[in-house]
């Protein structure tokens, strides 16, 4: 049976645990940083030496850690792309611009255990020869920025950051940088532009891969809050031990944000892939099921950008049988293990690990209209397909939810959504705004068509000339 596994959230919410430095130190805080900074070079069989930094980067690779922000990209690989020979400074930015609808996990870490993030950052910075780093926190988290600034002040006073940290000769400064209410700043190149003091227009790749041409055109690492906390635990326990948590290629733990129509919404840390969607939604130790008399209608499994699952939807997943042969197993949506690969195989994603549950009281057209309004508001406006497409989808859904719909709106929505993603836009926002429309409309098409049809019929009954099909007389007019 699935259980919570608290690695990152080990102390968060524990009675008596505070977010101050003394509390953190009392629970073994900053010992891992000390270990990292004073790690001796390791002798290799060929006579060469592996520096402490190289060893840490190697451990992160071995751990199999994948980014916790949304894309699930290998952290070790991301670090390996960093241009270390450019002669330019290398920067690290903690992406704390948590704003994917449904997600509220980084908030828990920053508000309740800020020193864990700072320690993870300091280790990641040391491992990558970074001497100046930023925490880009979303503007609305006013208290979060204050808490982090206070924690940084405490850490500076005790020499966990600053000059010659713990006598190691290593210098690091970390500053908090606040956003100002724009979702696009979560996209790493948009974030970099924002940090540079510009409009957060994402940069085109190639050539602007942050690992080579990032902040001020210098090599830059952008990692999520939870990812950086994981780095601390990887160094503490070793990459191999970390990789034993979770499932193959989906290692470690993840903090799942559960919201919507469940009895116990909240954040639950699990070993990746060791709980199914059904357990997360229905098990009493997690979501605790739906409200009385309600049935499940739909689940968005990884933040609002992820393609929706319809209750009862089935997928054919590859599995190994007892003799190790690969077989296809029909799997209900609810029985998908909550990990990166299974959800991708089912055509969606675990994204930022945010599950939004909708029961049968939900008007699915209204739900999509809500999500599309979000994307129309948040498109940065740089690329025409995204700027115009997100707005037209939102306007179409607005008329469908305000009595002005048409039976053809469902197909119309799909046509727009199909023409935004796939290399037509600079960043993945084009995909993010299209996926909900493509999946909601395809999987609940009858509801979209019925709504438009009912509107047409009602208007026709009211004698609205504009709503009627064109007649010959009108055509000659």
């Amino acid at each position, binding site marked *: 049976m699935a259980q919570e596994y608290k690695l990152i959230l080990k102390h968060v919410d524990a009675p008596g645990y505070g977010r101050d430095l003394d509390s953190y130190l009392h629970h073994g805080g900053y010992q891992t940083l000390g270990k990292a900074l004073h790690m001796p070079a390791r002798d290799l069989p060929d006579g060469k030496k592996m520096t402490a930094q190289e060893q840490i980067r190697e451990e992160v690779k071995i751990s199999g850690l994948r980014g916790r922000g949304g894309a699930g990209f290998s952290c070790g690989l991301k670090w390996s792309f960093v241009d270390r020979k450019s002669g330019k400074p290398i920067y690290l930015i903690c992406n704390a611009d948590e704003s994917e*609808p449904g997600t509220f996990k980084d908030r828990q870490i920053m508000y309740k255990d800020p020193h864990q993030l700072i320690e993870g950052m300091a280790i990641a910075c040391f491992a990558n020869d970074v001497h100046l780093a930023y925490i880009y926190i979303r503007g609305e988290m006013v208290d979060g920025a204050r808490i982090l600034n206070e924690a940084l002040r405490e850490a500076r006073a005790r020499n966990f950051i600053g000059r010659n940290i713990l006598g190691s000769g290593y210098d690091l400064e970390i*500053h908090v940088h606040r956003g*100002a*209410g724009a979702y696009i700043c979560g996209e790493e190149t948009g974030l970099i532009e924002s940090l540079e003091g510009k409009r*957060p227009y994402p940069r085109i790749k190639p050539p602007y891969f942050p690992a080579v041409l990032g902040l001020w055109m210098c090599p830059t690492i952008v990692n999520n809050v939870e990812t950086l906390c994981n780095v601390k635990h990887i160094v503490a326990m070793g990459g191999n031990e970390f990789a034993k948590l979770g499932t193959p290629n989906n290692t470690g733990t993840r903090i799942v944000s559960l*919201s919507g129509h469940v009895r116990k919404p909240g954040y639950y840390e699990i070993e990746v892939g060791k709980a199914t969607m059904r357990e997360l939604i229905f098990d009493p130790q997690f979501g605790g099921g739906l409200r009385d008399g309600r049935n499940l209608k739909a689940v968005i499994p990884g933040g609002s950008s992820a393609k929706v699952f319809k209750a009862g939807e089935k997928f054919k997943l590859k599995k190994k049988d007892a003799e190790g042969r690969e077989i296809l197993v029909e799997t209900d949506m609810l029985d998908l293990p909550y990990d990166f690969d299974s959800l991708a195989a089912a055509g969606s994603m675990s994204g930022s690990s945010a599950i939004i549950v*909708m029961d049968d009281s939900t008007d699915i057209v209204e*739900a999509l209209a809500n999500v599309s309004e*979000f994307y129309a508001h948040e498109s940065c406006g740089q690329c025409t397909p995204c700027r115009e497409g997100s707005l037209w989808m939102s306007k179409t859904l607005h008329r469908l939810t305000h009595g002005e719909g048409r039976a053809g709106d469902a197909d119309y929505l799909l046509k727009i959504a199909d023409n935004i993603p796939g290399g037509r836009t600079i960043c993945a926002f084009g995909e993010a705004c299209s996926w909900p429309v493509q999946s909601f409309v395809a999987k609940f098409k009858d509801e979209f068509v019925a709504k438009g049809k009912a509107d047409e019929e009602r208007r026709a009954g009211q004698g609205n000339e504009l709503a009627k099909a064109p007649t010959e007389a009108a055509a000659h007019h």
Partner: protein
Amino acid sequence: MINQNNLNVMSFNASKELEAEVDELISHYPVKRAASLMVLHAIQEKFGWISQDAILWAARKLELPPINLFEILTFYPMLRQQPMGRYQIKVCRTLSCALGGAYGLHRHLCDRLGLDAHAHGPQTTKDGRFTVEFVECLASCGTAPVMMCNDHFHEGVTLEKADAITSACK
């Protein structure tokens, strides 16, 4: 619009504290321009909004053409180009909060404060006490519906709770 002829006419009075705070912020970055957003935050914290004179002052501090600040002022939803109410209420409208009753909460607040729940954008009461607006996901979806009143964050906001919060705003 900003009149280039008026660049030297400064009617913006930055206090010594603001000047010191801005200098400190600028020192956090190897390139001055990077401090732009933080400087605008600092100005808005003191004055509640960012005037054109404030933009000119910040531009001089950051050694930038004013347009560089004006273009970010007009992009970010949190930055204000005109004065707002003394208490600014931001109600999250995105999916999880909508499922949790955010639209009813927003309507209730507007009705109670004499504002139009269907109007677009932030709305301010005639007495200048409240501004109410819908904002996008505030990243606390598990405690829906949520809202902010100035810097304070409120979770699981029932209509009664909303009334108590607004009543406490003098």
